[in-house]
């Protein structure tokens, strides 16, 4: 185990996979100087400019070229800088990368990883703050990962690079400096579709991913101080998502709250709540709930940005209401 930041864990994962497999290469803007957040610092020195490749400001070509290069047996990792810019490459990701294997009848694979940093972060405003993970979960052919901790960022990124299908890999910009213990084993990977139990308790189930996991963990602590113990589940990957762990927990607790940073309406929380409502209706002792962003773009002003945040107080309050059967 080593103490690493979320950012360093991602960088280490990439370096290890590049050492392990010469077909792994990375492409994106400014990578030669370390990338916009420093996630690639030092890698060009070790791997050279062909494998840590700069790119023109050509998101469609970055992703489209990665599709072609992946079909030809290399394993590109693509950096989109802010997930918002991936919208400049949506045809390449959704119509091409996600569908090539299927529409060509299994003749090819597209083993690419698209890193798309998400989330609200320091007054970044409407075009640099989005969390559109629900979109990708809706698209057949894609795997979707949203790591919340340094260890997960190492293990999931490695799993993503080893995956033979396209993976949308969403790091949260607010988590870059977060520190944590990270396994040293170069074969440590986090399997897709296996959630992580962050806290355990019998009175409610909180499901979260990405930065919201930490907000929920704060809430869980507050609740514990009040004697309310909850299961806190970090989903880690949204597709596939660990339905059986969530169902098992809900069968135990009878209460489900999903918290995420993305817009609530048609967010992935809807999928989880709908699935549980369909499949675990008999287990539910209170109506399930979602907490997410109101359906508004993200503002620059901190007061207005903050108005969209799901807070630990909101989560704790919602759980308390559910447990105490308070009216909503």
């Amino acid at each position, binding site marked *: 185990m080593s103490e690493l930041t979320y950012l360093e864990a991602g960088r280490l994962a990439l370096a290890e996979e590049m050492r392990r497999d010469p*077909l792994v*290469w990375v492409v994106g803007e400014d990578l030669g100087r370390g990338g916009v957040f420093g996630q690639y610092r030092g890698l060009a020195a070790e791997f050279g400019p*062909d*494998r840590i490749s700069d*790119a*023109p400001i*050509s998101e*469609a*070509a970055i*992703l*489209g*070229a*990665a*599709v*072609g*290069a*992946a*079909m*030809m*047996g*290399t394993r*590109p990792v693509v950096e989109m800088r802010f997930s918002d810019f991936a919208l400049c490459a949506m*045809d*390449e990701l959704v*119509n*091409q990368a996600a569908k*090539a*294997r*299927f*529409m*060509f*009848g*299994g*003749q*090819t694979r597209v083993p690419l990883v698209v890193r798309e940093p998400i989330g609200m972060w320091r007054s970044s405003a409407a075009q640099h703050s989005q969390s559109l993970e629900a979109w990708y979960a809706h698209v*057949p*052919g*894609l*795997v979707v990962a949203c790591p919340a901790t340094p260890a997960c960022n190492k293990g999931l990124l490695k799993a993503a690079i080893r*995956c*033979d*299908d396209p993976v949308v890999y969403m790091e949260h910009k607010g988590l870059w400096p977060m520190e944590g213990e990270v396994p040293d084993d170069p074969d440590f990977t986090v399997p*897709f*579709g296996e959630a992580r139990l962050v806290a355990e308790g019998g009175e409610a189930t909180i499901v979260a991913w990405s930065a919201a996991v930490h907000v929920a963990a704060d809430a869980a602590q507050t609740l514990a101080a009040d004697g309310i113990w909850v299961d806190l589940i970090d989903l880690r990957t949204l*597709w*596939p998502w660990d339905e059986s762990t969530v169902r098992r927990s809900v069968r135990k607790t009878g209460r489900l709250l999903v918290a995420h940073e993305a817009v609530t309406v048609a967010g992935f929380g809807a999928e989880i709540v709908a699935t549980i409502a369909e499949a675990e209706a008999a287990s539910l002792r209170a109506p399930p709930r979602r907490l997410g962003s109101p359906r508004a773009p993200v503002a620059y002003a901190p007061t207005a940005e903050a108005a969209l945040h799901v807070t630990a107080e909101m989560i704790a309050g919602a759980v308390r209401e559910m447990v105490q059967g308070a009216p909503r």
Partner: protein
Amino acid sequence: MNAMLPVNLDRDRLRAHHRLMWRIRALEEVALRGLDEKLVLGAIHPSIGQEAVAVGVVAHLAREDLLLSTHRGHGHTLAKGASSGAMLRELLGRDGGTCGGKGGSMHIADFGVGMLGANGVVAANIVIAAGAAHAVKLRGENRVVACFFGDGAINRGPFLEGLNWAAVFGLPVLFVCEDNRYAATTRTDTMTAGPGASARARSLGVPAEEVDGNDVLAVDEVAARLVGEIRAGGGPRLLHAHTWRVTGHTGADPGAYRSEDETRRGAALCPIRRARETLAIAGLILAELDGDEAEARREMEAAYAEAQAAPFPPFAAAFSDVQDIGAPQHAAAA
């Protein structure tokens, strides 16, 4: 028709082109009948009249070279070496089609012969082709990637991004713009500013040449030069081939937006007829040349009949080849 023979005419080579052009045309004529007979299911975009571009360019690609195409991709696919049987099964949506019936005409592909797919999104193949060539370069292989697209495609962003990419990274791609003067029902000159594909390519650092795309020997010759330059490590090239689609945009389109005059002049350019006339002047007997046509038609009729006999893919095909992890779960076949 000019009765003069090209200097250094390679009769055998032209004869082979003649045969292959007939195979493409016969395949598409059968496919059009298949559309009428409601056996070909989705839209098809015939390349009738444009065969010389596919044939002249692909003549310079080895099996290990790669090719990407568009919605109008039958000719490129057949020229690259796909089997007509598998292609027609694909067009009929059958088991044993090149894509197992999952892609159809617009996504026809045969990776076994380096044909990396037609594409239903105009210009999307340009950036993918650049990426395939990027992999070729990263792996130190010696392969050329040919990427076909229409004159309408040069108005989409990926044209700029893909050509710039290929030039910046010095990649082995031959971009081929098949300029048939129309994008669906729209005359491309009304929606395209500036001097066109070649000028755009040059401004992006990609040397370009223009050619009469209905003259298979001319295409053959310029493609030889360009592919040679690419193989020598010269980076990408663009070939702007002027041609004409004889049919409508799709099999269902009568093409009535084109003037009679234009249609008549376009039809007169037929590349197969021109090859035939040159071969006749060079001493081949017409009966032999008719044999090329007949043989091609026989092949495609047989393939069509055989395709009709093939079963549709099973229900479960809807759920395979999606992804390894998180693949769709479905109830047993209905």
